[in-house]
Each structure stands twice: as C-alpha cells, then as structure tokens.
C-alpha cells in the first residue's frame, strides 16, 4: 500500500493511501471529535463534528469521509471549527431531552463527553422539549427516544454487523426516529436476535440494558470493531 505524506495542524505525518483523514489523525495521536462514526461501521458523514479545513478547498470536509492525498494540508482545530462543533453539540442538547442527571449513561456517554470536549458551558438555543416515548417492551433492552441523537449507529450495527436490519429510521427531519421492524414495540420485533450490538453501538443512554440505573450503564463500543475485525480475519 502506497504511503502518503500530509500535514495535520502543521505536523508532518504519513498515512496509507486508502486511509481517511480521521484514521490518519488518530494514528498520529490527533483527536478529532466524532459522533456518527464508529470503528467497524460504514461512514455516513452525518454528524458534521469531524469537519476539518483542507487547504485549497473552500468547503469544510468530513475527516471520516475524506481520503488522504499527497501533500494535503489539514487543520482540525481552528477557532472556526471549534465554534461550529460547539454549536452542533448545543443543537443536539436542545433537540431532545438530554437530562444527564437522570440518565443511565451519565458519566459513560459520548454526547456528554463531547460537550466537555467542545467546551459547551451552556446551550444558547431554545430547548425544543419534544414529547418522546420510552419503549421497554423488550425483555433485556430498552430504547429512550429522549436521548437518541439519530446517529444511526444502531441501524448500521444491526444491518452491517448482525445482518438482520431490525432498526431503521422512520419519518424525516426533526421528526425522524429510530424504529424496530414495522414500527412495532421492540419486544414484538421478530427480526431482533437480541444480540445487543445496538446497545454497544449507541453513544448515549438511548439504548440501554434494562435494570441499569442512573450512571450505571457502561459499555465498550470498540467491541463492534473487534467483531468486524475478527470476522474479516477468520474468513
């Protein structure tokens, strides 16, 4: 595999020719915030948190979806990018009812961690306070739509890793929500194998295991990548 040399924030780094800017940056120890990205799953470029500046391109590009090129000059942490990231995280907090104090994932939540990372001190936007439901019809898991950020990691984990496609998105715009099968209660979704990969993939407390109480839910999202890697190597 050919190597590419590029600079990220002025630091010269080398990367494999098929790597994304995100992968190259992480290998070089440069952190770029992400939310919809999860190692092992396909990229959708939807959260816009990993947008970076690339010299010669007027538009910001998602690091997760941009392949490195020779001589590329990338900036990941300019004031403009920081301001945008903070605004995006604030928009998410305002969109649904993310109340950390009563959340199973508090302390182990990627959204909460992102808020800290991007320096969100408060939310400048009006809280939309939608009336969202909680579905605990499944024997082992539950889904709290109040905490869902529509990153579609559960949809992709279920489709691409488990291969059953129980999850999808219904509706559109801000009314979009994740559903199981034909929008039936999760417990009645016959395609679900109860494998729990959606739980592993979920960045927030939206998908939780029943029985865990506030701040108890810990999980390891990197297990998705492990499963994918193991499968690829075995076959």
């Amino acid at each position, binding site marked *: 595999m050919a190597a590419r040399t590029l600079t990220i924030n002025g630091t010269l780094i080398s990367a494999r020719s098929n790597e994304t800017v995100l992968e190259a940056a992480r290998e070089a120890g440069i952190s770029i915030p992400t939310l919809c990205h999860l190692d092992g799953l396909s990229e959708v470029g939807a959260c816009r948190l990993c947008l970076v500046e690339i010299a010669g391109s007027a538009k910001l590009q998602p690091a997760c979806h941009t392949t490195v090129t020779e001589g590329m000059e990338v900036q990941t942490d300019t004031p403009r990018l920081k301001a945008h990231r903070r605004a995006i995280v604030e928009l998410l907090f305002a969109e649904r009812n993310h109340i950390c104090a009563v959340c199973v994932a508090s302390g182990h939540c990627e959204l909460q961690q992102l808020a800290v990372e991007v320096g969100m001190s408060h939310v400048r936007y009006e809280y939309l306070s939608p009336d969202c439901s909680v579905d605990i019809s499944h024997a082992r898991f539950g889904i709290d739509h109040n905490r869902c950020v529509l990153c579609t990691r559960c949809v992709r984990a279920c*489709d691409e890793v488990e291969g*059953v*496609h*129980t*999850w*999808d*998105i*219904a*509706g*559109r715009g801000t009314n979009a929500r994740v*559903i*199981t*099968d*034909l*929008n039936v209660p999760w417990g009645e979704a016959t*395609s679900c194998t109860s494998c729990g990969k959606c739980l592993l993939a979920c960045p927030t407390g939206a998908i939780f295991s029943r029985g865990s109480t506030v701040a108890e839910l810990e999980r390891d999202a990197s297990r998705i990548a492990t499963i994918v890697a193991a499968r690829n190597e075995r076959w």
Partner: protein
Amino acid sequence: MKRHQYRADALIEVLHKAQELYGHLTEDRLLEIAHSLHLPPSRVYGVATFYHFFSLTPQGEHSCTVCLGTACYVKGAMELLATLETESGLRAGSTSADGKLSLLTARCLGACGIAPAVIVDGNVAGHADPEVMRARVRALLDED
C-alpha cells in the same frame, strides 16, 4: 410487484402502486411488500414515512389540497387555508371524523401562473377565491 420482478429498488414504485390501488398504506400491506421484495420491514416503513406522498392513514372520501408554494403564498394562500380550516373545523393535514373530507396542503403544484391554486378531488382550481372555496368545502362536508 411482479411487473418489477420483485426487485428491491422497485420499493417506491410498488408503494406508489399500492397507494393508488388502496388509497393508503396499511401495516399489513407494508409487511406484505417487505416480504415480497425481500426487504426488512423497518426499511419499508422508513421509506414509506420518508416521502410525504405516502399515507399510512385512510384519506377522506373527498380531498381539498391548498397549494402553499411561494406564488400562492404571496397571493394569499394562508388566508385561504385559514378560511377552509375554520369552515371545515379541520386542521390542515387531517381528515374529518366521518371520513368525508381530508384538508391537505401541498408544497407547490407548479400551477404558479394561476395562483392561488387548490385541488378539489383531483381537479385544479386556479385563482381560487376564499368564499367560493368555502362554499365548495361546505358542499362536500354536507353531502350525503
């Protein structure tokens, strides 16, 4: 579905056809489509709810669609809609309890030259006058 050889990419075409035949898409029908096209039910539901053309609830016997495109908007479509909402007691996008009438809105019918435009049971009426439309809606509601 046969005509589309049960191809997964024919989903939207099939949904169009099903809605045309039955007026709206029931969950049973969506499930049937999912099975025939070998698609996950959640994907079928996701597609059916993404596009505003598809309706999962029955539509009224009659329909009245007010165009809210820019040209119609500039020419008073909102006032027209408000008049019809008051007359029918329906909110835009809903159907009367007796199933007589659905009051709907459209993004743009492309009939901007004759704005404001209203479609009553498939027939476009241009230069729509609130009072005339009010009477037509009343007539549809009162019909036996």
